[in-house]
């Protein structure tokens, strides 16, 4: 356990070691997070007549979704993909630690880094929106915390599965793009899923992506309560466990066929 904790710490140190990238990340996070809001604001200004969702509901959702999406952003594809393609994965596999858990430890440090960067953006959000951006109530907030952790676990497991395509294609960009597109569409980060065409809404219910942004936010904003809240958390937990185990199984299969690149 101690080894994984050290991996986490040192990976976190490495993340913060590049100060320039800290400011760069903060800047790009701010942009990617402000643009959808600006677009929607323009749409709402142009069509003032009875929107499907009131601006008071939509804007806090979008701002928080942007933050959340950023907080659970993964470096896994980049980190692991690059090690697979360069063959450096050989040295990871020769360590007496579990590869997936070691990657999770490092991904957690990404999470810590991202959450830290989110704080100033969140502060601005609260200043701008006031109570509309606060959790619905104490129960909503307390249930949001485990939901956030599960969202992170799901995101990690999805990335861990997708990145393994690099074992076979030796170039991972297409895979990364596919994962990002699905995440952007089905997580609810670009717009609340209730605004989607019905067939897309139904599709999203069969995919894990909605549980990375939509579900935790719905809990936070009090859109789901009581038994719905419990089943939302249960669905998240189910996906997290399923995807984590699937990632392990696929890894075991990949390693059997692995040909480490280079002499």
């Amino acid at each position, binding site marked *: 356990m*101690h*080894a994984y904790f*050290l*991996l986490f710490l*040192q990976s976190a*140190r*490495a993340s913060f*070691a*590049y100060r320039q990238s800290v400011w760069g990340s903060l800047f790009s996070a701010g942009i990617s997070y402000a643009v959808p809001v600006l677009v929607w604001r323009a749409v709402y200004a142009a069509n003032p007549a009875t929107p499907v969702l009131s601006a008071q509901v939509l804007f806090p959702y979008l701002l928080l979704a942007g933050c959340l999406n950023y907080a659970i952003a993964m470096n896994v594809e980049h980190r692991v993909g690059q090690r697979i393609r*360069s*063959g*450096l994965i*050989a*040295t990871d*596999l*020769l*360590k*007496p*630690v*579990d590869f997936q858990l070691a990657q999770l430890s490092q991904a957690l440090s990404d999470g810590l880094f991202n959450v830290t960067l989110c704080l100033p953006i969140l502060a601005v959000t609260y200043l701008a929106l006031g109570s509309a951006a606060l959790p619905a109530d104490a129960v909503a907030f307390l249930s949001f915390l485990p939901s956030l952790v599960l969202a992170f676990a799901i995101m990690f497991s999805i990335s861990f599965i997708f990145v393994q395509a690099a074992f076979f294609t030796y170039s991972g960009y297409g895979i990364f793009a596919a994962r990002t597109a699905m995440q952007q569409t089905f997580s609810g980060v670009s717009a609340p899923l209730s605004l989607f065409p019905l067939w897309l809404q139904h599709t999203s219910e069969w995919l894990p992506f909605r549980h990375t942004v939509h579900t935790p936010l719905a809990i936070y904003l009090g859109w789901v309560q009581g038994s719905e809240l419990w089943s939302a958390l249960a669905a998240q937990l189910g996906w997290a466990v399923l995807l984590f185990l699937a990632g392990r199984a696929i890894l075991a299969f990949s*390693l*059997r*066929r*692995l*040909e*480490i690149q*280079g*002499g």
Partner: protein
Amino acid sequence: MDLALHTEQLTKTYRRRVSKPGLWGSIAGLFANQVKEVPAVKRLDLSVRLGERVGLIGENGAGKSTTLKMLTGILVPSAGSLRVLGKEPWRERRSLAREIGVVFGQRPQLLWDIPVRETFRLLKTMYDVPAAIYDVTYTEAVRRLELSPLLGVPVRQLSLGQRMRCDLAASLLHAPKIAFLDEPTIGLDVSVKEQVREFIRDMQQRFGITLLITTHDLKDITETCDRLLLLDRGELLFDGSMPEFERRFGSGRRIRFELEKAVPAQALPELSAALAALGGKLGESGPHQLKVEYEREGAAPQLIQLVMARLSVVDIALEKADIEGVVARIYRRQAAANASE
């Protein structure tokens, strides 16, 4: 059990995708692949006892790295069996990892963004290295490889030579039972190579580590190993001691003379006979160059005297073949043997 590792008929065949040339070939490749089988290691039988020091040589593509990858558990064999410390490497990779140390000369195992010292600390925890062992391995590594000035430096700022030293230290921190060192001196200058060899020798003796080193530098073998394996196109061509190797394939010693004038063709038979009497043999020679090959150590002065008495010599160089040279000679010898059959 005193076997460190044992293989029987160990075989690895890579499957390579063959794409047809040109854009259409690439597009066709998106839909259908032709696969070609490329044998890398063929029916290798090998046993190494605990504490042995073994050097593995061969040309590029001979199967050295493939063998090492199978022995360390990161590559699954196509056929045959292998046991390393009683374990089947690819099935028990993680538990085996605890007992072996590995350097892939071209692949650093140090974490890129953090100082060397932190990587060492992380490895100590990962491998559960007892303090008594770590005190020795760490102190020795720092002293012998002169690491103190490097400990606080992030790995990405190290030069190749510095990184190799740190990498070697990292692989031996837990005093492994077997060390697999894949080209541990690649890209190092001569003085650092010497340092690295000394460190390997010292750690080997102290902890009785079984060594398996692959290299292109014969000196790595002569100075750290007592058994030599020559791998060629996936097959074991030689397995024995260094002196045996030289007895069988020649030492590759050679004198090169640069001549003022070309040697007249009619003088060659007499020169060749005179050289032979002293244990020398005419090698490939150009118009203004004469190469004399010999096996016996100490034969050079007489051979030089003999040539200088007959020809006008501008320059002399003593050469010793590297692994490529030795292997090339073996090929030539085999080709000649096949032709004469």
